């Protein structure tokens, strides 16, 4: 059979064709081009027309308002803020408040969710029924209702500041929130932190060394006495040399409220409680499903090796279950973040409340502000799923799958 010398086929053209027109070839490509052009034209028309009409009605447009003075105050801010700051700063304040409640909510939701899932799978009848009841109750009630419940039924029932519940006259719980002494850094603060860090790093190093020894030679080294000694001892020595690290600013009742100290406002507490308990109910079911998806032979194999139930779960089952758990878990994290915008109902100053609420109605620039707010939520969601995907990728790599 004669082999005809043949030109190597040009790779570029088919590839381009495939990317642009699929199998339909050039006609498909032209159609798609037309479609994209039409889409671009329609979007341009919408934007241009909206702009022209805004101008015709003399509604202020553009983003110039971001530099203007806000002129209103906010009850909770992670960065210094006063009424004479700009709307841009209001935006940052609201965004940070949203992120704060989301991150803390996600943390607690995950912890509670895992605990409830393990409880529900526990052989202990009572524990598993309680966990089951929790899930069924919480996930079947509307979230807004739960937020209002925590805020208006639980936290508002606390006494007023003058009759607040106090612990050692330094921690106060009232319907204005939880006020605790605030640490104020002194001369000995930095050496103290350094000493503590050194102790922690040394402990970790020691623990890894002990583990290696255990795997290589079966020698058991007790780590905890050394660790305890270092973590308590080193900072203590630093305190003796450099002086006390912090003094505590104790809150005192002055006028209507407490002055000094740090305060957790009830709006924040109610929102965090509601978001984390609500999302935890869903996470519990996801975790339970993930654990049940691991073949029970794995559990039996672990038990037959002599491992205890806790160790079997921790070392064998959960790492395998995580691959199933992660994608829906990411969904729940995204839901929690988006649900945090219900804050507006109880006056927690999140992004929707201070920016898409107050700022919007003061400037009247609805299109710009809603656009920015939607963009921010989209960005937060995309970043969260990127982080979770990265984590999932690491897990599957470490498991060789």
């Amino acid at each position, binding site marked *: 059979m004669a082999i005809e010398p043949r030109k190597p086929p040009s790779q570029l053209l088919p590839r381009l064709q495939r990317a642009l027109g699929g199998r339909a070839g050039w006609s498909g490509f032209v159609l798609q081009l037309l479609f994209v052009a039409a889409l671009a034209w329609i979007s341009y*028309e*919408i*934007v241009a*027309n*909206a702009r022209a*009409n*805004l101008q*015709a*009605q*003399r*509604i*202020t447009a553009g983003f110039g308002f971001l530099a203007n003075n806000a*002129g*209103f*105050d*906010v*009850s909770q801010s992670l960065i210094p803020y006063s*009424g004479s700051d700009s709307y841009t700063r209001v935006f940052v304040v609201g965004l940070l408040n949203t992120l704060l409640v989301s991150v803390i909510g996600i943390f607690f939701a995950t912890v509670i969710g895992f605990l409830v899932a393990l409880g529900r799978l526990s052989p202990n009848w009572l524990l598993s029924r309680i966990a089951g009841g929790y899930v069924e109750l919480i996930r079947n009630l509307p979230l807004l209702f739960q937020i209002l419940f925590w805020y*208006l039924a639980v936290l*508002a029932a606390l006494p*007023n500041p003058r009759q607040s519940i106090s612990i050692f006259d330094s921690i106060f719980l009232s*319907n*204005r929130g939880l006020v605790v002494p605030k640490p104020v850094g002194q001369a000995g603060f930095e050496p103290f932190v350094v000493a503590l860090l050194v102790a922690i790093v040394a402990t970790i190093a020691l623990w890894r060394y002990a583990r290696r020894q255990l795997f290589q030679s079966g020698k058991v080294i007790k780590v905890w006495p050394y660790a305890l000694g270092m973590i308590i001892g080193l900072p203590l020595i630093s305190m003796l040399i450099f002086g006390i690290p912090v003094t505590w600013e104790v809150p005192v009742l*002055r*006028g*209507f*409220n407490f*002055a000094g100290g740090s305060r957790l406002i*009830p*709006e924040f507490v109610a929102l965090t409680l509601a978001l984390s308990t609500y999302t935890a109910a869903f996470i519990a079911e996801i975790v339970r499903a993930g654990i049940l998806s691991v073949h029970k032979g794995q559990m039996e194999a672990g038990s037959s090796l002599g491992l205890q139930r806790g160790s079997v779960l921790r070392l064998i089952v959960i790492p395998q279950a995580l691959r199933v758990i992660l994608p829906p878990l990411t969904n729940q994290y995204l839901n929690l973040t988006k649900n945090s*915008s*219900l804050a*507006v*109902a*109880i*006056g927690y*100053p999140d992004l*929707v*409340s*201070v920016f*898409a*609420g*107050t700022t*919007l*109605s*003061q*400037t*009247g620039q*609805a*299109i710009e502000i*809603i656009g920015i707010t939607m963009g921010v939520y989209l960005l937060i969601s995309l970043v969260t799923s990127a982080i979770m995907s990265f984590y999932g990728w690491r897990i599957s790599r470490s498991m060789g799958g």
Partner: protein
Amino acid sequence: MKRVSLVVTLALAAGLSAQAASAQTLKTVKDRGMLSCGVSQGLPGFSSPDDKGNWTGLDVDICRAIAAAIFNDATKIKFVPLSAKDRFTALQSGEIDVLSRNTTWTLSRDTSLGANFTGVTYYDGQGFLVKKSLKVNSALELNSASVCVQTGTTTEQNLADYFKGNNMKYEVIAFATADETVKAYESGRCDVFTSDVSQLYAERLKVANPADHVVLPEVISKEPLGPMVRHGDDQWFDVVKWTLYAMVGAEELGMTQKNIDEMAKSDKPEVKRAVGTDGNLGEQLGLTKDWMVRIVKATGNYGESFERNVGAGSKLGIARGLNNLWSKGGIQYAPPIR
């Protein structure tokens, strides 16, 4: 709340991109056979639904008067309840024809929102409501207090100015609706509830024991409340503006709901011009000659509406004060109807 404003915003974007600003609101309203009127979500005395779902109040009467002038029927109105933060977007998007919702007239609102104020229905000012048990007699004693306020109002900014100006500290908790704000105040989350004084009197009726709460004497701002219409439709602007002046003018002329039929036969020149037996003032507005008769029949004159809704004849019992006629010590004044 969020969903509402999002929908309204999308409607705004769609409305703005789809149609050119319609400059013929009066014609649109006539064709539709219905006036779309933006009101509050329930503020006794100004706009609130009664147990049968009928809207009443001073702000509502403005819309009733407009509907009466156009259709000779004060019930041809669709009331759209709006929160403070959604109200302007609803007007901009064309969802409502007129916003009559205790809204303070300020320069920035008049210029940047694409809307105009047509007049002042109620001269108000901002004050503070506190519990009597706190034994506070003056707003200057409110240092370190927690203050509940409704978001998206001029109140929020006046509050910041007042406390800053007097070197006092405070904590502000802002809620989306008036009901949430009052609930938080009542539960003890705040020491003070601040809003326009008229609203304080109205909201005080909603708390469990109104007598345990007191409005402090300080009035810290000027809050002229009035209706708003969209920019770019001068005819509609005139109709809404002169509807209010017709009510005030009717009080000046002594036209009341009771005597309006006799007044229609009057031979006093200024009354004849008003009731339309002389000249065509109503037609110049795009309405009918008897427009003022229709208005007064439907809602009474300004004074009657005031007394019925917020004054001595109502639960609020607010004195006329600044809102009396200019000839009786107030500043309500209608330009000549001629």
